[in-house]
């Protein structure tokens, strides 16, 4: 059998992306959605191939390519994670295509790039989770960020999207500046960019730890921006709300997961500095409080999911504080499933009615399948047992209790209580009958509001897969736990 090595996966993804761009440019007559199906098929093949890659830990004395690229289990796992996310995002993009098309009234030109860009983002994410050298972290981070610049402002005729794009561009560029400056400080102190060698240099008592800490704080600022941690979260609600919804889903899952993997790797290098942990505790507490309290009064579902994304960053940071890679990874998997599920339903419903929570009124009666999918997504986000979200929270808080992080646990109790409120608000809109009276009035003007919302076969399949996976992981998490063992 032919052996596949890890870097070949990224190369395959990049080739796929370029091929799709080429086809898009030269074959103009086809339905652009064919490109999306090709992208899904290609990514699925790479995903299958990734199971044949043999992981091996990074060697200390490695040189050249292998000194900044690691193919350990963690990175292989998150490469698969990035691929799955991208596949679901492209499926959502197919559903979202009419909206994109309507923002380019003259032609179909936009759609080809719309389907091709996520593939480059995916390659960036896959490089990022393998990066063990600051230079490589920086380069792959830029690959991710630059493709997101375009994606976020893709439907640029819409002023809200344009605003989101501008905000994302400016703040993202600022965070890039921070990470470069931080890397420069760290390199200046230790003379190294490889994370493991930095860790070794920091153990040396002659190293200037204060300067290294300063560099690390700068890096932390940039990563805090990526994972939407307080106080670097200001961009999140506006950008999430303004960006095309599949891109929002991609931002909140893919970008965040990669950010956490890098954070875990970077913090491992700085584990000898005790201040690092205290700083993360502070950030986690702030993120939990801000994300949950700010989510309470939201009435727009997309914005609510933006704040919920901040809140979940808080839970994930608890796992980071405890250095529990397994808990963080499991939580990210659960977060992937439930967030994509919620966004997928949102995209379908929003095209018929709107993005406000009140637009979901009576959905339980209008389209029981979509309402059920949203119900599972929301309950899992709230952390109810027998869903993946519960096990995620369970492992996170298990690690927190084990390390006696009293402050984090106390804030966690409040956060969970808030979470129940704002997630059940959506459930309530879908199932409680009270406000349907206003709909019969609205129905008189636009008859299709009461009708069942059409769901394409592919989306139905994707939703079913997500629902089943969410419940399956909630009952039998062993399939993921075994994959995550000994990370």
């Amino acid at each position, binding site marked *: 059998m032919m052996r596949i090595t890890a870097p070949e996966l990224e190369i395959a993804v990049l080739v796929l992306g370029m091929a799709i761009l080429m086809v898009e440019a030269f074959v103009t007559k086809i339905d652009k959605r064919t490109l999306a199906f090709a992208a899904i098929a290609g990514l699925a093949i790479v995903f299958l191939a990734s199971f044949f890659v043999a992981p091996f830990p990074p060697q200390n004395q490695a040189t050249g390519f292998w000194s900044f690229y690691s193919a350990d289990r963690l990175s292989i796992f998150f490469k698969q994670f990035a691929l799955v996310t991208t596949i679901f995002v492209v499926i959502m993009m197919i559903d979202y295509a009419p909206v994109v098309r309507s923002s380019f009234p003259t032609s179909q030109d936009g759609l080809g790039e719309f389907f091709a860009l996520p593939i480059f983002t995916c390659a960036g994410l896959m490089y990022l989770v393998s990066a063990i050298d600051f230079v490589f972290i920086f380069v792959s981070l830029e690959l991710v960020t630059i493709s997101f610049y375009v994606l976020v402002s893709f439907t640029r005729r819409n002023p809200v999207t344009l605003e989101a794009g501008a905000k994302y561009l400016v703040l993202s560029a600022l965070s890039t500046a921070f990470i470069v400056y931080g890397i420069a400080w760290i390199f200046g102190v230790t003379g190294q960019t490889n994370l493991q060698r930095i860790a070794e240099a920091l153990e040396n008592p002659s190293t200037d730890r204060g300067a290294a800490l300063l560099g690390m704080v700068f890096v932390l600022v940039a990563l805090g921006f990526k994972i939407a941690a307080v106080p670097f979260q200001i961009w999140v609600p506006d950008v999430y709300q303004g960006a095309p919804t599949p891109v929002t889903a991609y931002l909140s899952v893919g970008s965040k997961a990669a950010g956490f993997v890098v954070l875990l790797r970077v913090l491992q290098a700085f584990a000898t500095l005790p201040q690092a942990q205290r700083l993360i505790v502070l950030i986690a507490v702030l993120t939990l409080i801000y994300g949950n309290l700010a989510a309470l009064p939201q009435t727009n579902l997309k914005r609510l999911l933006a704040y919920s994304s901040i809140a979940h960053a808080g839970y994930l940071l608890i796992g980071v504080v405890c250095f529990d890679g397994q808990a963080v990874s499991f939580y990210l998997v659960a977060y992937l499933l439930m967030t994509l599920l919620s966004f997928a339903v949102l995209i379908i419903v929003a095209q018929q009615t709107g993005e406000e929570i009140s637009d979901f009124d009576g959905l339980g009666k209008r389209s029981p399948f979509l309402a059920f999918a949203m119900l599972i997504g929301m*309950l899992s986000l*709230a952390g*109810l*047992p*027998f869903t993946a979200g*519960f096990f995620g929270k*369970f492992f996170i*808080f*298990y690690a927190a*209790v*084990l390390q006696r992080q009293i402050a984090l*646990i106390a804030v*966690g*109790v409040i956060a*969970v*209580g808030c979470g*129940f*409120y704002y997630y*059940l608000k959506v*459930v*309530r809109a879908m*199932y*409680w*009958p*009270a406000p349907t009276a206003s709909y019969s009035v609205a129905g008189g003007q636009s008859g299709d509001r009461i009708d069942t919302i059409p769901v394409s076969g592919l989306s139905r399949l994707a939703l079913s897969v997500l629902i089943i996976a969410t419940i399956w992981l909630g*009952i*039998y*998490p*062993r399939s993921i*736990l075994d994959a995550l*063992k000994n990370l």
Partner: protein
Amino acid sequence: MVLFVIFCPIAAAVLILVGAPARKTALAASALMFAAALFLFGSFGYGQRDFQHVTSFTISPDWRLSFTTGVDGLSLIMVLLATIITLAAVWFAGAIEKYENAFYACLLFISGGAIGAFVSIDLFFFYAFHELALIPTFFLIGIWGTGNRVAAAWKITIYLAIGSFILLLGLILLYQSVEPSSRSFDIRALQAAASMGQIGAEAQRHIYLLLLIGFGILVSLFPFHTWAPEAYASAPAPAAMLHAGVLKKFGVYGFLRLAIPLLPEGARHWSNLLMILLLGNIIYIGLVTIAQKRLDWMLGYSSVMHMGYIFLGIASAGILGVTGAAVLMFAHGLSIALLFALAGELRRRTGTLVFDELGGLSRLMPFAGLAFGFGVFAAIGLPGFANFAGEIMIFFGAFKHGWKMEGFHSFQIATVLALWGVVISTVYMLRAYRKTFMGTMPEQWKDLADLRPALRVPVTLLVGALLCYGFFPQSFVRMVVPTFRTYLTVNR
């Protein structure tokens, strides 16, 4: 058989959601559950301390997490209680105006969640099954409730979610307090570890406090009780029956199952705190109950108040008091379900439960009046009803406390104070009975009819169970005692 009792209601609920005829499926499922519970009751091996009918599926060997179910005496009487009340509640529900399928599915989910929690030997599923009942309660109160249903639904859901989460933290701490080599979610393994003294005194204090707050919120222990009266007043009658009768008992059951056997030192350390809180339940909530002007609120508060007696039995740390707590738990479930059922039926017919607008109804509804009288006297604790057996054991048990103490100790003072609770509950119960079923009848009710024969069946079932259990408590006591004897003698 145990698995059947758990999954029968859940499977039936799924079938109903898919489109099976709601009422027939629900009735058939609850009748089957009741039959299965009776079978378990009949085939129970007395005198055995271990769990029986044990089945186990491994979920994660690394975490020693497995889906293990089985019954001992304590869990069996809880299963029996749950199936009786499920049958009565489903029968009593009748035709529902809107979303009938969803209504019955929610009822069955609550029942399945409660039973699953009672028969789980694994702590993880013990917790998870209880949470399964949370969302159906939210729906039942929010969609089919009356009065201030929206606020009540939010209040109960968020309160219980936070309570459960604190409980989860306590359970995690309990799991971690054992040495890493013998960590397990299996209650039997934890008991073995506890009897070898692996759970340190300080850890016990922390865990006990978390469990006290967590379970306390779930059982509406003073001062965490404020969700209960409003939720029960707004809930549709079958939901109130199931929640007050069965699901709320999960907290007490958890206390009997975990706090007493595993954390004796924690119980000793916090006994004074618990005593003050339970007196708050009995005396303060008792007085609040007297002040109520509506029957549903009064019943809601009275169910909070009676939790105080059960906690008194638990706090007594002696075999007599703890057994009494188990007995009262069963009896209170039956009597409060009976009262909520009749109150719900009254509300359906008259549209009001304000005392001043009711009166003299027993002339028109002799059967309902008689049944309500049974419920009232059971709740007061008249001899002949199961509640009496439980309360008397609790009072004797608490007066002669499990630990050796000198002179006239604090628990005897608490017991004397708690005895006044009987007087308080007599006042409000008899007053409620007089104002609804006795006295002068307002003109507007003269066309009311008595309960239909179909509705008399579940009422008779509940009254029969109360009397049967009241006259022969011994058969239940014999089931429960071996469960407690193991550790209450070991820890002395």
